[in-house]
């Protein structure tokens, strides 16, 4: 079971690396920023998988903080670009 969950976490990590393509090549700023938001949500998923695999409830706190504060960059960006137009 642990092996399976760790394998899933590695898969998620590979998904993140594919998402990196959009961050680097993305035609517009919005594509890049949404790529970074993908990092945030998949990061939460990886942390939850590791929490079950390593039997560490402390990791749930990390996931909670990450889920709560990852949108901060997005809020800033949306606010700045709406002021621009």
């Amino acid at each position, binding site marked *: 079971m642990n092996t399976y969950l760790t394998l899933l976490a590695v898969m998620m990590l590979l998904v993140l690396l594919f998402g990196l393509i959009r961050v680097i090549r993305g035609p517009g700023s919005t594509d890049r920023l949404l790529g970074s938001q993908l990092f945030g949500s998949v990061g939460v998923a990886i942390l939850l998988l590791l929490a079950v695999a390593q039997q560490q409830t402390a990791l749930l706190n*990390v996931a909670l903080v990450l889920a709560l504060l990852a949108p901060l960059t997005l809020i*800033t960006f949306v606010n700045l670009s709406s002021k621009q137009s």
Partner: protein
Amino acid sequence: MVIIVSIELWMDVLLAVSTVLLAGLTLAARNVFTAIVLYVCLGLLVTIIWVRLNAWDVAIAEAAIGAGLTGALLLMAWRRLNHPVIVPSKDAKDVS
């Protein structure tokens, strides 16, 4: 047991390689905005590394500061630096 250790080792190797890759890409980016976004992604990856190193306290602080605050701070400063300084002239009111 052997296969568990090897999968975790693979995860660590993948994390280490992608962190180095991401750091290189961050500083190689031509565009400052891309560099900021890549740095936020690097912060998230480093959070997972702190978890792998059993440093949960540091991981919480890094998740809050590296993923949230630094990105917002750098974006704000970039937006303010990115424009040429406009000196309001005496009859600027007519324009606006």
